[in-house]
């Protein structure tokens, strides 16, 4: 394998080849049935380069991200392993990262994590032993120096493409580009942003990012997603932490007749993809559609992002790990 690559995964190859990348989020099931993961992955695999396995997003408990990654790599898909600092301390996280890499995971996304109060079990204890930047740095140390944080040697270091999140749409706006700079300094190779519904604000942010030269140091993927109705939009902006939706978009959905709302929400999303694609420094999009995976495929296709490039394997598949269909049906 080429030594210049930090991972064996396809996302890194797509991005480094200068192609516009697409990642998508898999909604984790509330189930012990692996088939539910595979059903969701099947819809996404043909239309994206890597699949995000969320880690208790919104502080709601679902199947764990490490387990979803295990299922996905077993079937040959390329997951992005999301790790949040909310639920695990440094000992647990470093172990999980090694385990994930051993299962063929090539991408890790380091997050702070939504607070426990955002979920349905607000009585839980917060961990937050690391913050996302310390987490990034720690995994970078494991990868590049082949050690745990304690200095203990790893016999084989993990080969990982490191990701971080960015939210340009919430205060303190002026500081957001600097926070991104810190994350890149700490080790981020790619960035996935929060939902972008406010393109003018995003343009401003990217201007500063370019001024600081950050767009040349990491790949920036813009978070996008469809809104089902103005009610759903209103819910998201009041209940989901960190989501900013301008009034104009809510107004546009309100004016749309009921049976056309879903269509309109999709069109808004496609328009946003087309607009951000033109911005210098944007390397891809990250499509998130809460419980509407079918829409993701339509959006990606309507935005003109198909077919996905076939570098190092089929779309959403990693070069190293080949599909093993037998395992897909029966689990272990």
């Amino acid at each position, binding site marked *: 394998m080429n030594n210049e690559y930090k991972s064996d995964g396809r996302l890194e190859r797509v991005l480094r080849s200068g192609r516009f990348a697409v990642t998508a989020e898999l909604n984790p099931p509330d189930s012990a049935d692996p088939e539910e993961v595979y059903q969701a992955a099947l819809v996404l695999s043909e239309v994206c380069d890597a699949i995000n396995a969320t880690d208790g997003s919104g502080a709601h408990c679902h199947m764990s991200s490490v387990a979803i990654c295990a299922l996905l790599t077993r079937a040959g898909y390329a997951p992005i392993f999301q790790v949040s600092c909310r639920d695990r301390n440094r000992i647990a996280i470093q172990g999980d990262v090694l385990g994930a890499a051993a299962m063929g995971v090539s991408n890790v996304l380091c997050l702070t994590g939504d607070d426990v109060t955002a979920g349905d079990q607000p009585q839980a204890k*917060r961990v937050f032993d690391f913050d996302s930047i310390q987490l990034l740095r*720690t995994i970078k140390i494991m990868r590049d120096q082949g050690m745990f*944080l304690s*200095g203990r040697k790893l016999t084989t270091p993990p080969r990982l493409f490191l990701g971080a999140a960015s939210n340009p749409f919430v*205060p*303190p706006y002026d*500081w957001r580009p600097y*926070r991104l*700079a810190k994350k890149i300094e*700490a080790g981020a190779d790619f960035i996935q942003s929060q939902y972008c519904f406010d393109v003018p604000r995003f343009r401003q942010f990217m201007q500063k990012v370019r001024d600081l030269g950050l767009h040349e140091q990491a790949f920036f993927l813009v978070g996008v997603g469809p809104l089902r109705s103005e009610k759903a939009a209103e819910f998201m902006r009041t209940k989901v932490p960190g989501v900013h939706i301008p009034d104009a978009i809510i107004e546009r959905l309100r004016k749309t007749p009921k049976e056309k709302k879903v269509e309109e929400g999709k069109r808004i999303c496609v328009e946003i993809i087309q607009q951000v694609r033109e911005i210098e420094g944007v390397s891809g999009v990250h499509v998130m559609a809460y419980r509407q995976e079918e829409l993701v495929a339509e959006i990606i296709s309507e935005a003109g992002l198909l077919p996905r490039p076939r570098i190092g394997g089929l779309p959403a598949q990693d070069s190293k790990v080949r599909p093993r269909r037998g395992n897909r049906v029966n689990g272990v």
Partner: protein
Amino acid sequence: MKFGQWLQNHPHFLEQTYWLTHRVFTWLDPLIARLGYERMDRWLRGPEEWTKRIVFDCRMCGQCILHSTGMTCSMSCPKNLRNGPCGGVRANGHCEVFPDKPCVWVQAYNRSLEMPRYGDEILLIEPPVNRQLEGSSAWINMLTGQDKVVPKAWDQIEVIPIAEK
């Protein structure tokens, strides 16, 4: 709390005070060493906690970085973040977790802009917290160097990545 808030809104005064206290402690170091760091830690803990709690809502992490975070205690962020705000800050600048309270980091950032001496240090990458120091006197840990001990493999980046603001 009111007096504390008034003080915190004068970050330049506070950073000068920090600078001065830092000098006094360094100057007193030989004496403190003679008396014994452990004993001094026991004596100082109480008064340090009391004063810092009034002004900063301090959580006694034992490795104070107030001057690097806009003279605002980052441990009072409910997520204990040391390197900047999470992505959940509300549009009005309030905290994701406590909708009635301003986000600690929004305050920290605004205050850091008024701090010519240490303001830029908010751009530094802070190492993971040593939870063993919780509850001990940060001033004594500063003198013994305990607060600067990082995990063995941690490669501390001393330079501020982007210095110009």
